[in-house]
């Protein structure tokens, strides 16, 4: 079996090298059959990589411990779901997942755009180049098919990875990371083929949106995993690996906005190329940070020697993309200019600057320990206050811009028109701010600003829908005529929920910790928690000791929680089993952690009351819904684009 996996990977490597070399030659010398053959190689690479992935999955499912990878990451007692999720639990499997997703995306992108031969001819070698790196790593540096005499049982899986969220979080992140390769390849392909029209943008619009959605949802699921599994009561800790996923997402967000200016006004062509290259390079950096073990992170589950290879690849990608954009600068000159600093496109530009500035300050924070180690020989890192400062400095204006943008007209807006459109959102913001101060919630300035700005944004989104519906006669017609815009507003509403949830659960949370003997109680933010007793349970892969804690509010019993600790004997590892009461009254949580049990039966209970935290998770559903609305195909638009790029074809005539 392992031999089949190795052969399949070697075939993948040969195919993507052929796509890179043969595809480059074909595109440069304008050879049609060779270009088609290179495209086929990329499609075939998906098939061979799938065979390799199937071999690894079968080995995992059969507990074939003669595979070193299977022995290192699973055990016989591990439930089947987690056993299969070990596919992405280790370095070699993660690299294989990268290649599966990349070759799958590449095959689909090539097939969907097969009619744009002159553009796709240059896209194929770029995709082949990226795939070559990963196939090389899998064949010659970090193979999942290494064999050794099989031990009686495997080493098992890190306890914190044994969580249902881990079945979805890494694949979603990878779908996002890898998805950013497609717009990068089309952008670079457009530059290589000297096509300065918008064909590459049209071809990658949905790819970017899909990759961005996967990355966003992946991060949110990861945040929820951290919340329920790590057991410290938070969901985002500015950890380098968490930041690694946030940076490309922020840059892709900037790209999704700025690309609209190119489509509508023909401006920002250079900036869009820079963003698409930056997002891709940050996604490779993210994989490097997660997999190399060069940074200290609770999410780095492996220390390895692949860092140097990744660093080399990142340098090649940066030099290639920067060099190519520089060489093609004369082709990217815009014919139009920004007409006014008070216009929709100007607000998009401000939003872009803030998003990129936030991404770069996070990048500096992530790289700082590595740089201090390299320059001064000692590791120094930046902590939460650094990130919080920049989140407040850039994030709050971004939140406000989300409300201002939709109210401003394209090209230029007069003060009179602005006054008219701003009045309702401004009143909503002022009333909210005054009301919050009046009820005593003005203690946190960032929290107060976040809620005031949120009221402004919410009012502006509602106004957009109301005025648009009035103008078109129906909400359905309004949305179906411009899915991207109104889907975007729904996504804005989800970001709003996220901001409200984050502000509520961080700026207004209450934390208490106390040692309790059976029968004793503690008070936290209007809740009473009474510790009753302990009990033990046994699962196939762990033993758990849990406490019985009754939760009361206003004298009424509202819930019984079971915070505990699990021991994983195969792995020799402990995990926190937090228990949470979701309070529908304030959309918040009573979050309990059994910090310690002592021999006398005393429970050291940590309780966090986090108002509005459930809005953070609700935001995820709205985010997906909005993204789907924005992504949904528009037949009229597709016909128009087909007529533009493929005149005379069946697609244009439909």
């Amino acid at each position, binding site marked *: 079996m392992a031999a089949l996996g190795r052969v399949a990977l070697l*075939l993948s490597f040969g195919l993507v090298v052929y796509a890179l070399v043969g595809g480059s030659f074909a595109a440069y010398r304008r050879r049609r059959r060779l270009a088609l053959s290179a495209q*086929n190689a990329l*499609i075939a690479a998906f098939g061979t990589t799938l065979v390799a992935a199937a071999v690894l999955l079968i080995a995992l499912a059969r507990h074939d411990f003669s595979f070193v990878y299977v022995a290192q990451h699973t055990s016989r007692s591990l439930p089947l779901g987690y056993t299969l999720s070990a596919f992405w639990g280790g370095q070699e499997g993660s690299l294989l997942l990268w290649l599966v997703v990349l070759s799958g995306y590449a095959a689909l992108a090539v097939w969907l755009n097969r009619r744009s*031969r002159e553009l796709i001819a240059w896209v194929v070698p770029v995709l082949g180049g990226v795939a070559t790196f990963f196939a090389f790593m899998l064949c010659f540096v970090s193979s999942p098919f290494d064999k050794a005499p099989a031990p009686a049982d495997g080493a098992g899986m890190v306890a914190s990875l044994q969580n249902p969220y881990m079945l979805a979080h890494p694949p979603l992140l990878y779908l996002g990371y890898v998805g950013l390769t497609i717009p990068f390849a089309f952008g670079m392909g457009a530059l290589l083929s000297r096509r300065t029209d918008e064909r590459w943008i049209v071809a990658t619009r949905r790819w970017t949106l899909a990759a961005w959605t996967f990355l966003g949802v992946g991060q949110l699921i990861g945040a929820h995993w951290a919340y329920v599994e790590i057991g410290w009561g938070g969901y985002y800790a500015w950890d380098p690996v968490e930041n690694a996923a946030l940076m490309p997402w922020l840059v892709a967000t900037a790209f999704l906005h700025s690309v609209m200016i190119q489509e509508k006004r*023909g401006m920002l062509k250079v900036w869009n190329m820079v963003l698409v290259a930056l997002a891709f390079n940050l996604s490779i950096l993210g994989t490097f940070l997660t997999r190399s073990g060069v940074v200290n992170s609770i999410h780095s589950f492996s220390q390895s020697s692949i860092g140097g290879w990744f660093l080399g690849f990142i340098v090649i990608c940066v030099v290639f993309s920067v060099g190519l954009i520089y060489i093609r600068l004369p082709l990217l000159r815009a014919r139009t200019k920004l007409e006014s600093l008070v216009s929709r496109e100007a607000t998009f530009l401000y939003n872009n600057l803030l998003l990129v500035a936030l991404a770069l300050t996070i990048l500096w924070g992530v790289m700082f320990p590595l740089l201090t180690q390299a320059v001064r020989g000692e590791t120094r890192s930046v902590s939460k206050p650094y990130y919080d400062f920049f989140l407040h400095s850039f994030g709050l204006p971004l939140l406000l811009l989300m409300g201002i943008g939709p109210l401003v007209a394209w*090209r230029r*807006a007069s003060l009179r028109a602005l006054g008219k459109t701003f009045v309702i959102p401004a009143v909503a913001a002022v009333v909210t701010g005054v009301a919050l101060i009046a009820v005593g919630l003005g203690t946190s300035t960032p929290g107060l600003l976040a809620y005031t700005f949120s009221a402004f944004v919410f009012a502006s989104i509602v106004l957009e829908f109301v005025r*648009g519906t009035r103008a078109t006669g129906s909400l359905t017609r309004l949305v179906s005529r411009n899915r991207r815009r109104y889907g975007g507003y729904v996504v804005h509403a989800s970001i709003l929920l996220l901001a409200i949830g984050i502000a509520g659960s961080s700026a207004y949370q209450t934390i208490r910790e106390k040692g309790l003997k059976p029968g004793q109680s503690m008070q936290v933010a209007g809740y009473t928690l009474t510790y009753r007793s302990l009990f033990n349970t046994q699962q196939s892969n762990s033993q758990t000791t849990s406490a019985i804690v009754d939760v009361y509010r206003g004298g009424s019993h509202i819930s019984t929680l079971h915070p505990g600790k699990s021991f994983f004997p195969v792995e020799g590892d402990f995990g926190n089993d937090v228990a949470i009461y979701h309070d529908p009254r304030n959309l918040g949580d009573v979050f309990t952690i059994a910090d310690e049990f002592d021999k006398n039966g005393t429970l050291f209970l940590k309780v966090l009351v986090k108002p509005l935290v459930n809005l953070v998770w609700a935001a995820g559903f709205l985010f997906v819904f909005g993204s789907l609305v924005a992504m949904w195909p528009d037949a009229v638009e597709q016909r128009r684009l087909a007529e533009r790029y493929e005149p005379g074809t069946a697609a244009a005539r439909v």
Partner: protein
Amino acid sequence: MAYALVLGAVLAVLVVLFVARPFLREPAPADDRLDEPGALEKRRLVLVEERDRALDALKELEFDHRTGKVSDDDYREQLGPLRRRAAETLRALEPRAEGRQERVSSSR
């Protein structure tokens, strides 16, 4: 092991056949040049994109006016130049479109 290697060999043969398919289907083609848009086609694309932008801008202006984002004065001021630009791109496209159709007909 042997079983896996046979499967691997079959896979390799299938892959080679698939990759070589364009050459197997057309061993001696009359023309092996990759299509490249000519100067005329590139110009058409620029104009079509420009036309779509101008028509979109007109639609946006109309919508922004109806939803109160653009005042009556601004609307009147912007409408003329945008209409002129849309008309210019439409005019620029017309003769070329006819010319292209004529060339296509004569080549048949």
